[in-house]
């Protein structure tokens, strides 16, 4: 049970910083609360008494949305559901709708926020590998100023970030990838409301003929302390002709990605299969030429 004496809902960043200053050492910032409330239960943190909760979801800046051809800017309070409701956003971030549909369930993703997913820094977070694939920059603000840094630097370990005392995550700035095909592969112990054992975000851009990989972005999570971009694989694929052999070669790169202590061999196996499966799905959505990938390959991994 989460017990507080006061629940504040500041209407601006300044109000929020004032509240944080006023209650220094006795507050916790919350957003969607979909992780905080389950955390304060038996078997996890148990009953938790926090004098002041500061809810940042009503701050206008944290709800901003800008979708351009090159860049996307999203406030930290953006609910995950928006990637399913906002077609323009889905086009600019083509793996995100696929990720969103796997994210918890219809109801939780209406509450859960993008910023919360990043600040929690769970190794099994679904949204952060997608953001990594977009080279997301996190924007941070405090009463004394603003700074920004790449998401991969922001998340430093399980549950650990560079968020400083008195600082808020206000938003993300990402590369937009219109015209890319996106996919999101995930496995857990069931098919809804499930924690990832492995998850993979893939985006692929093909040439006009759908035969050559112009660009690709891959990022993986669930298998190591923090999400990881797969730049080695991106580099291998970029500019190459789209073939089944190439995708299998990419999947076979000896990267030693799995750092989790449990289920290592299983995860390694799944990662390999997901790489091929995710690339096939993303390539198809990017308009792959029907003769680029063989039926056998699709059957073997699809």
């Amino acid at each position, binding site marked *: *049970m*989460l*017990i*507080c*004496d*006061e*629940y504040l*809902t500041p209407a601006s960043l300044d109000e929020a910083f004032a509240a944080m200053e006023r209650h220094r050492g006795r507050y916790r910032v*919350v957003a*969607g*609360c*979909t992780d905080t*409330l*389950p955390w304060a*239960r*038996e*078997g996890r943190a148990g*009953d938790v008494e926090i004098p002041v*909760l500061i*809810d940042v*979801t009503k701050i206008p800046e944290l709800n901003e949305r800008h979708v351009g051809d090159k860049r996307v800017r999203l406030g930290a309070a953006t609910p995950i559901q928006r*990637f*399913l*409701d*906002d*077609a*323009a*956003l*889905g*086009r600019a971030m*083509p793996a995100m*709708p*696929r990720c969103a*549909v*796997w994210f*918890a*369930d*219809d*109801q*939780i993703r*209406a*509450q859960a926020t993008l910023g919360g997913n990043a600040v929690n820094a769970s190794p099994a977070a679904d949204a952060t590998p997608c953001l990594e694939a977009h080279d997301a920059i996190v924007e941070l603000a405090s009463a004394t100023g603003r700074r920004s840094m790449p998401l991969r630097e922001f998340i430093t370990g399980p549950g650990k970030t560079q968020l400083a005392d008195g600082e808020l995550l206000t938003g993300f700035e990402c590369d937009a990838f219109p015209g890319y095909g*996106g996919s999101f592969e995930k496995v857990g112990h069931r*098919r*809804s*409301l499930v924690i990832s054992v492995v998850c993979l975000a893939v985006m692929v851009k093909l040439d006009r003929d759908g035969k050559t990989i112009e660009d690709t972005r891959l990022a993986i999570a669930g298998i190591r302390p923090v999400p990881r971009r797969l730049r080695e694989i991106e580099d291998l694929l970029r500019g190459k002709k789209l073939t089944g052999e190439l995708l299998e070669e990419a999947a076979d790169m000896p990267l030693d990605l799995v750092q989790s202590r449990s289920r290592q061999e299983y995860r390694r196996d799944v990662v390999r299969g997901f790489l091929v499966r995710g690339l096939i799905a993303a390539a198809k*959505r990017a308009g792959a030429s029907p003769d680029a990938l063989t039926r056998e390959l699709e059957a073997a991994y699809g």
Partner: protein
Amino acid sequence: MVDIRLNATINGRKVSRDAKPHLRLLDFLRDDLNLTGNKEGCGAGECGTCSVFVDGVLMKSCLMPVAKAQGATVDTIESLAKSGELSVLQKAFHKAGASQCGYCIPGMVMAATAALRANPFADREEIKERLGGNICRCTGYQKIFDAVELARDVQNGRVPATALLETDTADGDVIGKSVRRIDAPSKVSGRLKYAGDMIMPGMLHVQVLRSPHAHARIVSIDTSAALAMDGVESVITAADVPGKDGFGVFVHDQPIMARDKVRYVGEAIAAVAAEDALTAKRAVAAIKVVYEQLAPVFDPDAAMRPGAPVVHDYAPDNITKHIPIRVGDVEAGFAASDLVIEESYSTQAIEHAYLEPEAGLAYVDHDDVVTVVSPSQNITHHRHMLARIIDRPISKVRFIMSPVGGGFGGKEDMIYQGMLALLAMKTMRPVRLVYTREESIISTAKRHPSRTTLRMGLMRDGRIRALAMRMVCDGGAYGLSTEGVMRKAAILAAGPYAIPNVQIDTFGIYTNNTPSGAFRSFGALQTQFATESQLDIAAERLGLDPFEIRRINAMRDGDMTHTKQKLGSVSLMRALDAAEQASGWESGAPAVRGPVRGDLGHDDVRPSVTLGTRFASSGAQEAAE
């Protein structure tokens, strides 16, 4: 505490009132507004019993601080049946038989309402995906999907509204007809009051102190600090039990609160009744217990070895129950067999996971009858046991069964009713206890985990000559239903097959694990899993179709069972024929035929699914493609 002045529109009415800042929207709706239709099944957003609309968007109200509803429009399950008339979807749930225990149903109806609002033409696969956040433990979901499809078709005019009406029984033949459930309207509308929804004037709230240790002697319990707290009315421990303490379905080995020692993590030690649940919680935290650790035993095989820690003095070998079954001479049977197969199997502990966590009320009525209202699966036996425990004549003990939000055997144990009765007697006020999901999981019975070795001797023609099975089950810290589970497991272990030589031994063993107890299929699930798996192994080795090997061995009318009971009519062959025909089974030995068999993918098989069916049918397609 700084209360929040909450202004919101709830079920169409303006509400303006103060709320404690730590409340979740669910608490505010249920406790402050008495809108108990939506339930708390898990408190962690994992089950969907609490799903409500907030500004038209379905949300899990257990994950929402009440302050987030400031200025919002909130609609609960109570809002759907306008002026008492059920919505089309609610009527469809009634008609399709989509509610069983009903506890998940208010949330499920809300999720289904949201699904059809999002896409009025959603197909069955999309419906499934949109209900993915709501767990149902009773129905297997089939009738829920049927109901949503029926409502969709009625709403779209593809099916007449008369399809929602009662089955016609005008011909007078009522048996054999799918008459609509009489309890469904109150379930689909959220009107039905489960124990955790009930309130009584002057009611106190109960919280329980639980053991953090698996095996420890209780040296002392100091309740003085808890008793001194404002708002605390009573604190009880085993020392307050007036009669002969002990409950259980077969042996009465479990005290209503730990007596002298604790035997598992989560065992009740003391209970507090206070003016509100938070005060009771804080009082529980103020109880001081001094423990002396005892060596624990967690593995049933280890517990059977000489010198193992003893869980109950009355059972120095830790054996709760051993059941033998003997027919013929198995060793001679194996010697005469053409093929002998020996394998080991194991099954895990599982949780009943009824969506309604345990809850109950107790009071002493005007005739001094100690009355307990709870979702008990066995009020008769509970009354007997409680009368002895509280030392009252049986006429002064009354059990009323509140609607049961799922049981599956898990509510056969009198695990908390004793504490409630005692607190009602101590305070002479109504008392109510509502478990959290976590409390329910750690402290109540599980399905017996099992380890089984199975030897089966067969003739070349497929006849089973001999079967020997030994199963060891972890019964956990208390007896509960272990004896009965071992008995049923053993009697049914060899399956419905005429076997001349049978030797079965099932052992239920005490350990310091969470107790195991009654669970739907009561031991037969564990033993028949082994037997039916092994029959397929045998069929492959002998080149027989799996139906065939079972037919060869099937008990026939008038055959003897393994307990030497003569059977009357045996319907096994009819069941085998029916399943084979209905599935269009292609005959052959079970030798990994999947890649080549021709009977797959019939019309009565659902499609393989991955997430994202909605991309094919909604505007989101554009977003993703």
